[in-house]
């Protein structure tokens, strides 16, 4: 059993903050296929479309029949642990600072042999190979690595020392939720508190206003309300000056969402308001908080760890009846990719969340299924715990994603014709 993580003591401010060193992040182009799947929480290997042989390490052609038709395919990860080792020496800084480090050699039931990081609950191989389940996770370099998990789940599995190096679990961490006035914001606050967050700062653009649900979250002992207006650079900078050096997880859920596209309105005021929060707001926030987050990425078991952007599935392809909103989310998505690239060197994970229509007032005219704020919040907690990068919560998002991947042009035509 994994020992539950204890809340770390207050840090001595005089002690040097450890700098981040990343595990080796170089991968060939083919191997990035495994990273692409792991970024969405799946463990995939290449499977030969001609002879069904499973390949690993990733290849350009089938090692059995030489066919180049290798397709990334989800794996169960069931296999036998043949051998283990504990490293007491490493040639790489990241691991040197984290020794001893356990590894395993797993023979997957589907064929290949894998070198994996070992979860602490997987015991040594004594007499005979041991059953394990292999999964893929993103490591601190943002690249997929394989992990050998025990066959049985247990309560504190997520607290495993090795696993916590890969993931961004909110437990004992300090979280900023940028907008507490919305149903989604309040669900996020509740979910972070439930997930064990140490402090949740909740942004409030208009502190003089009392809003429904406000009392419920403000009475939680972990919650501190803070003034934050993403349209105002000074407001963002002031908050960053106050708490920027303490925040471990930033969740930017602030957004302006108005319906309609181009022809139903005159002027650009509404579109500007959307852009001012959804795009420029995100930019202001990233400029103010990004640097501080990066500098604390290796600061102990509750280091700074993740940045969550609430985007929309409409960021992938414009939904004309929510046309300007879609455009602002597409801009925000593009900016989030830039943020992810800039954060990579420090190991801060940027998680982009692409929900389908949320069950709130601005999607009132859309038929179900819609994502409830609570479901969205728990999807975000799960993303942090599993260390994934891209999340598409809700049936609509999943379906649009599938259609978009299948053929983005066909999806564009369907959406233009009023389909959803």
């Amino acid at each position, binding site marked *: 059993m994994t020992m539950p993580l204890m809340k770390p003591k207050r840090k001595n401010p005089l002690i040097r903050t450890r700098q981040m060193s990343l595990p080796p992040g170089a991968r*060939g182009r083919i191997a990035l296929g495994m990273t692409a799947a792991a970024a969405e929480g799946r463990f995939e290997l290449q499977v030969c479309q001609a002879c069904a042989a499973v390949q690993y390490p*990733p290849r350009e052609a089938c090692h059995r029949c030489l066919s180049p038709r290798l397709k990334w395919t989800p794996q169960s990860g069931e296999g036998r642990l043949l051998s283990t*080792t504990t490293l007491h020496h490493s040639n790489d800084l*990241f691991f040197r600072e984290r020794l001893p480090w356990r590894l395993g050699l797993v023979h997957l039931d589907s064929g290949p*042999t894998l*070198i994996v990081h070992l979860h602490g609950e997987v015991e040594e191989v004594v007499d005979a190979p041991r059953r394990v389940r292999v999964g893929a996770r993103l490591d601190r370099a943002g690249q997929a690595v394989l992990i050998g998990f025990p066959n049985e789940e247990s309560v504190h599995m997520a607290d495993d020392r090795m696993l916590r190096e890969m993931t961004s679990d909110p437990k004992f961490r300090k979280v900023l939720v940028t907008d507490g006035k919305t149903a989604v914001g309040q669900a996020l606050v509740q979910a972070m508190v439930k997930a064990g967050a140490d402090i949740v700062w909740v942004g409030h653009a208009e502190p003089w206003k009392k809003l429904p649900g406000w009392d419920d979250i403000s009475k939680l002992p972990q919650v501190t309300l803070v003034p934050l207006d993403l349209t105002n650079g000074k407001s963002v900078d002031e908050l960053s000056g106050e708490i920027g050096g303490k925040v471990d997880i930033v969740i930017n859920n602030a957004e302006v969402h108005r319906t309609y596209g181009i022809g139903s309105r005159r002027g650009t005021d509404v579109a500007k308001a959307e852009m001012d929060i959804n795009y420029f707001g995100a930019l202001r926030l990233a400029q103010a908080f990004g640097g501080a987050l990066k500098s604390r990425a290796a600061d102990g078991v509750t280091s700074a760890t993740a940045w969550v952007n609430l985007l929309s599935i409409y960021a992938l392809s414009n939904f004309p009846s929510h046309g300007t909103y879609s455009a602002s989310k597409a801009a925000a998505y593009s900016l989030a990719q830039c943020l992810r690239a800039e954060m990579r060197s420090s190991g801060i994970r940027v998680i982009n969340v692409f929900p389908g229509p949320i069950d709130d007032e601005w999607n009132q005219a859309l038929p179900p299924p819609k994502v409830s704020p609570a479901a969205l919040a728990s999807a975000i907690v799960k993303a942090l715990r599993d260390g994934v990068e891209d999340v598409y919560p809700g049936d609509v998002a999943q379906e649009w994603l599938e259609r978009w991947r299948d053929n983005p042009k066909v999806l564009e035509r369907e959406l233009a014709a009023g389909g959803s």
Partner: protein
Amino acid sequence: MNRRKGYEGVAVAVPVTVPYVRHSTRSAHWFIGQALEALVKVSGLAKEQIDGLTVSSFSLAPDTAVGVTQHLGLSPRWLDHIPTGGASGVMALRRAARAVQAGDADVVACVAADTNHVDSFRQTLGSFSNFARDASYPYGSGGPNSIFAFITSNYMREFGATREDFGRIAVDQRTNALKNPNAMFKKPLTLDEYIAARPIADPIHLFDCVMPCAGAEAFLVMSETRARELGLAHVLVRGAIERHNAFADDPVMVRGGWLVDRAELYAQAGVQPKDIDFVQTYDDYPVIVMLQFEDLGFCGKGEGPSFVRENRMTHDGSFPNNTSGGQLSAGQAGAAGGFLGMTEAIRQLTDAAGERAVPDAQLGLVAGFGMVTYDRCLCTGAVILGRALTPALSRKRERETHDSLSTVPGGEGRGEGAGRSA
């Protein structure tokens, strides 16, 4: 399948070692240059008479063998770049031997050299192969230590080997190294010290690992006639095999490619494992030495542990192994580690091994093992070298072309023709 042509008439001579140093600011070219200079000096040949060249190195990039020709002013008519590390010695010999037999080259210099800058080992590991970059180096960055820890641990579980068994290999090699002036390790090693060493990657401990260093090893391949004309002490190639990516479906390495081809090796040499007087195994880790004892037929699969308990592996022991000290005690000068057994075997069979000589050695086996691209080494090879025949014996052998293949050359008159050695 057609029977492979033998290696009759091929001589290997002039074993050269460029002394090892732990770290060097020189480049690989410097060590290759030193090796070639020694080959020329000792052989008495002019540089221009070396018309074939093989180069094995990890630290030569972006150059390959052809870059070396211009750097060192050579103009060979036959050239090969053999970047296969621990297997490069056997592979270079096989290729050079065929070039000589075919007349594509008269004298081939086989050179392996590597430098070792302070940070070059780490840099080599991360970019060693595509598979290492994608699927092994990101896992703890232990380099080959972690891979051989898996192989060792699995072998121990499956065949009941203990750390003491591997220790016997390391300790006896150290005893040999004490009589090798070029060995990096100068102090004796006891079994207790071996056991008490710090762990590196369980069950691999410090004395299971080689020490990376800089240096070079080289030898010349030419016809037997030519070697005699030049008055060079030489050995003869009795048989040689290589195999790559054998037993790919074994989920973890428990046997090597030697097993596939060993019958052919011994048939070609016309001898049996019991006829071999010493072996130079590839000793990146002791477990691999044990696999070679098994897979080259000195004992059965899984009998390695009892074999090492029953034998002394020192140069004067019942089963001399790695008489130079091997890489475990002499040091691993990169790709030159794949040549170490070859130069040592030539010395043993030309009476140039000094006080670590194997008494009355007539036949030696050199094994190669190289290239951990992912979870195991891919290249295996082995060669049987025999003491050169005296002119009289040689003439006799020519008359008995067919029968003599199964005869081990006699020991009388040994040393004749052994005019010079490096």
